């Protein structure tokens, strides 16, 4: 059979996609609402991590943002976390107690691209929300202190917030060649650095494909033996937010979720939050209609390209890539690669550099999309279905339940 045959393609991609339970019934949400309220009250009762507190309202004012801008963001974030609209007040309150959560952000074998994306994030951006209001105790790119002073700040933060801070890691870790990354006056290797900081963290969040799966540095022949955080850190809850760069909306989403619940969100087998990585690019792609109609770009600049036809034949990996770019987009929702006709490169999937990257249309490529089970696999099916990490409650005031249902199947059904 010709794999680019229209009927064949249609059959492939019109199968039911991932099942994500976005309606768990009134009783479940009522209970969840109460739990979140309690959690927020506890956080509000705490002192902010930093002494000099500026009210959230004041921050908005400084940044010339109106309450309306903020509420727009609240709606978007609530929807992204797959919560019903009545949770919006809670999400708004969560943003306001963000300064109770200490953050340490480190860079290993990186390009600073995720930090860059973050600084260009949604409005009211992480410029306000994370960078400003969230207590970033240490960040190698944006902080003012340098050199020894910075090292002392880091050690102090680790001591002061032992077991309480969220550790964000950007960049892969060169296990095979420790010399490829060293840091500090008494040089520490990347592995030592990450292990040490993870040991004292509440949870570790790997930002970007490098920190999640090794990313570009791990591409064949992996000259430095680079791996992701989950291959180095054991015994701590880990959340992967892959993509190159990671979408800032997903980073904020994870933090808001943590604030609301004290837990990490429901994850897929690759430890990615399901709220962000539960659907394929293809499922919500603006060019999907052209795919279904069999209208494809055959060459850059052709009639199809001018009319925004489907990019599948140009090597777009949207059908095999789990991410929410098609909804959230980049640079404050300005655009995304498919929007300019470049096609998806599958950057939130492991090893995409070697198997997914660029010009090879899947149609005539030897690769097996998601974990060898074909494109109809859902996010849960590929991989081992390990959801154990989600069951680990983290943080100082962990409350019992999380948003999108912990042990998906049995428990939630009972609650409903």
């Amino acid at each position, binding site marked *: 059979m010709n794999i680019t045959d229209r009927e064949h393609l249609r059959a492939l991609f019109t199968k039911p996609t991932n099942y994500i339970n976005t309606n768990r019934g009134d009783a479940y949400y009522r209970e969840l609402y109460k739990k979140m309220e309690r959690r927020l009250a506890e956080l509000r009762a705490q002192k902010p991590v930093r002494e000099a507190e500026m009210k959230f309202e004041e921050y908005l004012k400084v*940044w010339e943002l109106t309450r309306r801008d903020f509420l727009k963001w609240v709606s978007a974030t609530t929807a992204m976390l797959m919560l019903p609209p009545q949770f919006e007040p809670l999400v708004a309150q969560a943003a306001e107690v963000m300064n109770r959560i200490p953050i340490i952000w480190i860079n290993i074998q990186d390009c600073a691209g995720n*930090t860059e994306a973050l600084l260009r994030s949604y409005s009211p951006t992480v410029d306000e929300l994370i960078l400003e209001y969230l207590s970033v105790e240490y960040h190698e790119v944006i902080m*003012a202190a340098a050199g020894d002073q910075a090292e002392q700040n880091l050690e102090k933060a680790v001591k002061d917030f032992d077991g309480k801070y969220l550790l964000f890691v950007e960049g892969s870790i060169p296990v095979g060649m420790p010399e490829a990354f060293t840091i500090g*006056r008494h040089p520490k290797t990347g592995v030592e650095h990450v292990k040490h900081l993870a040991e004292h963290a509440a949870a570790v969040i790997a930002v970007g494909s490098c920190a999640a799966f090794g990313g570009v540095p791990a591409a064949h*022949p992996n000259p430095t033996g680079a791996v992701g955080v989950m291959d180095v850190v054991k015994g701590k809850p880990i959340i992967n937010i892959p993509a190159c*760069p990671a979408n800032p909306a997903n980073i904020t989403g994870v933090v808001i979720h943590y604030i609301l619940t004290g837990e990490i969100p429901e994850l897929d087998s690759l430890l990615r939050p399901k709220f962000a990585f539960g659907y394929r690019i293809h499922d919500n792609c603006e060019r999907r209609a052209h795919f279904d109609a069999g209208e494809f770009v055959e*060459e*850059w600049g052709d009639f199809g390209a001018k009319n925004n036809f489907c990019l599948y034949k140009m090597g777009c990996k949207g059908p095999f890539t789990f991410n929410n770019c098609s909804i959230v987009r980049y640079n404050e929702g*300005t655009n995304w690669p498919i929007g300019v006709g470049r096609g998806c490169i599958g950057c939130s999937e492991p090893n995409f550099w070697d198997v997914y990257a*660029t010009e090879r249309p899947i149609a005539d490529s030897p690769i097996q999309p998601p974990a060898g089970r074909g494109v109809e696999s859902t996010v849960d099916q590929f991989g081992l279905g390990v959801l154990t990490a989600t069951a680990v409650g983290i943080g100082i005031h962990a409350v019992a339940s999380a948003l999108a249902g912990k042990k998906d199947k049995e428990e939630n059904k009972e609650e409903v």
Partner: protein
Amino acid sequence: MPKVRKTVLNRVEGEIQLKLVWEKGKVKDAFIIAPNFRGFEFILEEKPALDALVINPRICGICGHAHLIATTKAIENLYENAGLKIDVPKNAKLIRDITLGAEIIQNHLRWFYMFVMPDFLKLEKSKKLKDFEPIKGYKWQKAVDFSSRIVKVIAIFGGQWPHTSYSVPGGVVCDPTTFDLTEAKSIVDSVVGFAQQEIFGMDIEDYLSVSSEEEYLKKSKNSDLKKFIFMCKKHQLDHAGKSYHRFLTVCDMEYAFSKGITKKKRRNFYVEKVREIDSYSYLTENGFSFDKNRYSWAKAVRYNGLPYETSPLSRRINSREKLFINLLKHYRDSYMVRMWARIDEIARMLYAMKMWIESIKPSEPFYIPPPADIKEISGKGVGLCEAARGSLIHQLTVEKGIIKKYNIITPSTWNLGPRCEKYLSPAEKAITGIDSQLKAEMILRSFDVCSVCTTH
């Protein structure tokens, strides 16, 4: 025994370290250590040539777009050398220039307000500068805001920033409408407003006709550039931080700058005269070496055997801009002049971007298919591009569409690489003779440190 002090400078991404050797209160020798390595050149080997378009922008989260342009040009040059020249449509060239311009502007804005001004906060400790305080200061926030705004221009044409891959051999994949162009133009205009009001204190076109320091100080209203000049003078940074007084620029950009090398006189640039020397690098011809005298993952780069500075200042000098020729006569290539050239480029790029956007004709093509499939192409190609920090060179060797060798020389390798047997790197040279640690760091930062590009 001279006192050896090692300072870790970590305010830019990655971990560039500065080791200083002191004698009689002055820096006798300086080592710029780049300890972070990923191995892009090895990863690219044996991959399909077009994969480089997606892999290379990931070298850097700040100037990745320049890597995309250099890669595209290298592959186009490969076709040309194989006798199959691609006539890239004018529209595509303009779009590439516009997006590159946007990246340069965002970089300079961020760099000036997030890295340079905080240094003066440490020097001055005065309340007058509280607007420049990181995170809290009004100007700091404005700068972050506007540097985010200008990259939306890249998002309009390139889909996302950082890490876009929309430029391909033969043109660009986007096909912007008049609406897209208008949107881009309005963003540029808003940044022009910010630059006029905050940075230059005068109309941009008037600023571009300024030919001397006195003229600028007289004509401009209160502005950040003016403040910066006064502070440099107050702290003797107007004459400190001199390097070799040699400048290199590898390509032209209409309305913005022209290529060339300037030693005493300006000459043409020939890529054949560029050499990399690995005697102090961990990376050698025959693999890795961690001998004691080696101290950086970067290699030294020399043109005709000599170290050259490549930077916005080099672009101003090679374009024979009157203002900078005059500044150079008076101050030589000092901290203040090097910095001023970067700030100056914000105005020049904004002006050029407006011209470029107006020159686009949406009805004409943005892409022309290359005359042959890449799988049929063998040979060598060179891609030259001017990035935010200076000259970027990509060289590749391809056999039947598969990369056999890839070499990347970044601006930071020119400026911040290690020494060779004969010469210190331009930044190392600029730091020697300085009498304080903070100033040594500041002078290093005047080269706009980017450690991930230095080593890649």
